[in-house]
């Protein structure tokens, strides 16, 4: 409704006479009008059949919206989220077990919109591309059962992904991160490898092992099931040596195997630079 075709109004309130514009009736219907205006408008609408029909239509619209069925989060999405949360917790337990990144104004006490800007800075996202591909191909059914519960952070990840969920030979995501930029190798050492869990869990950066078949060949070379789906991956520089850190499930809640293999890992090159287990 523009000012040119609006019915005359009284002092900027409701139009003096019908027809009343849809947006005005929708405002009335939504309770968006100032009460004196609303009261006056309702009085005028009592015998206005067109306006009453519009209000009834808005009621019907609300009813249709309210009839949409409830939705349930798919198991694979829940599993991914649980795994990511559990990984974060296992990497950096603190008094609450939620990692070092405190609320810093991001929590409810901080006020203002959360989840953006400084209040949820740089929230890492585990790339779901591989999960999507599996889901679309129907290969992931039953592969992931990660149940949130309690563990270190209030989340128990019953990682049951070992040995299933990925088709051997299927390319894995490479260098994927929230900004779609190639990440620099993460500097780690044998002594602090557990500290890399948080970063690696948030990425699927397989580096040279991202090419089709490379990860499978590497896993086979180090005598692991080639169909194993790493929960995260990140190129690292381990005490000066380049490598690829793979986060592997262990089947135990909030417990993860951190395997660093050489970039050349494959047939005849079963080079494992580090192999440790972290978490509970």
């Amino acid at each position: 409704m523009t000012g040119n075709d609006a019915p005359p109004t009284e002092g900027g309130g409701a139009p003096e006479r019908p027809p009343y514009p849809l947006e005005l009736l929708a405002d009335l219907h939504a309770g968006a009008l100032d009460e004196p205006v609303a009261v006056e408008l309702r009085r005028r609408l009592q015998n206005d059949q067109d306006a009453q029909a519009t209000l009834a239509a808005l009621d019907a619209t609300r009813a249709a919206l309210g009839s949409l069925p409830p939705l349930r989060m798919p198991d694979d999405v829940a599993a991914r989220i649980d795994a990511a949360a559990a990984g974060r917790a296992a990497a950096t337990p603190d008094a609450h077990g939620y990692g070092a990144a405190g609320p810093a104004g991001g929590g409810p006490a901080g006020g203002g919109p959360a989840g953006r800007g400084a209040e949820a800075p740089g929230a890492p996202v585990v790339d779901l591309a591989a999960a999507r591909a599996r889901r679309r191909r129907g290969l992931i059914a039953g592969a992931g059962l990660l149940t949130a519960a309690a563990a270190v952070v209030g989340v128990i990840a019953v990682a049951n992904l070992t040995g299933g969920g990925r088709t051997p030979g299927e390319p894995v995501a490479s260098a994927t991160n929230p900004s779609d930029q190639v990440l620099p190798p993460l500097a780690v050492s044998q002594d602090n490898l557990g500290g890399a869990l948080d970063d690696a869990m948030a990425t699927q950066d397989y580096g040279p092992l991202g090419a089709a078949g490379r990860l499978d060949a590497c896993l086979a070379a180090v005598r692991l099931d080639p169909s194993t789906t790493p929960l995260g991956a990140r190129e690292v520089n381990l005490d000066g040596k380049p490598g690829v850190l793979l986060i592997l499930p262990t089947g135990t809640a909030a417990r993860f195997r951190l395997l660093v293999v050489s970039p050349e890992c494959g047939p005849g090159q079963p080079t494992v630079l580090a192999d440790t287990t972290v978490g509970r």
Partner: protein
Amino acid sequence: MAAHAAGDQHAFGELVRRHRDRMWAVALRTLRDPDEAADALQEAFISAFRAAGSFRAESQVTTWLHRIVVNACLDRVRRRNARPTSPLPEAGPHEPAVPRDAISERETQLAVHDALGTLPEEQRAAIVLVDVQGYSVAESASILGVAEGTVKSRCARGRAKLAVLLGHLRNPDASANVRPDAVTPPPARTREGR
């Protein structure tokens, strides 16, 4: 959430689990793309876990969880701009199975879903929270981080458009009452900023 403040580390995980279906619904209906909804939720939940130590009451944390989910979704909507969305599957893991005798109802639901997709994201988010998910205006305002009047105004504009799109207004071209393109009220009537 008092349990969490007292050191019960189970509380937050349980809380997230209890609410995640609702938040999945909000994300999916806001983004209209299961993959994007999953990414947004994961991003939001990880943010939530990082800040979980600050929660003081369950009402605070549930509102906050929803807020970061909605904001993550709206950020994604804005980023993708005009990129076309993938329609929701007609059946599968994201929607309940539909009995054959409910085809008409299912068609209606799809029509509603499609119509929702035509709304500007901020109107859609308000409509999803209030009309689809059943949150109060006050709760929705808190989740969205805007004034209650803004939620009402966005809902009003969204419903007006949907009423036309869904055919609830039978004669949209007759009289000044119904104009599909006239969904922006004059400034004197709106209370966006309140």
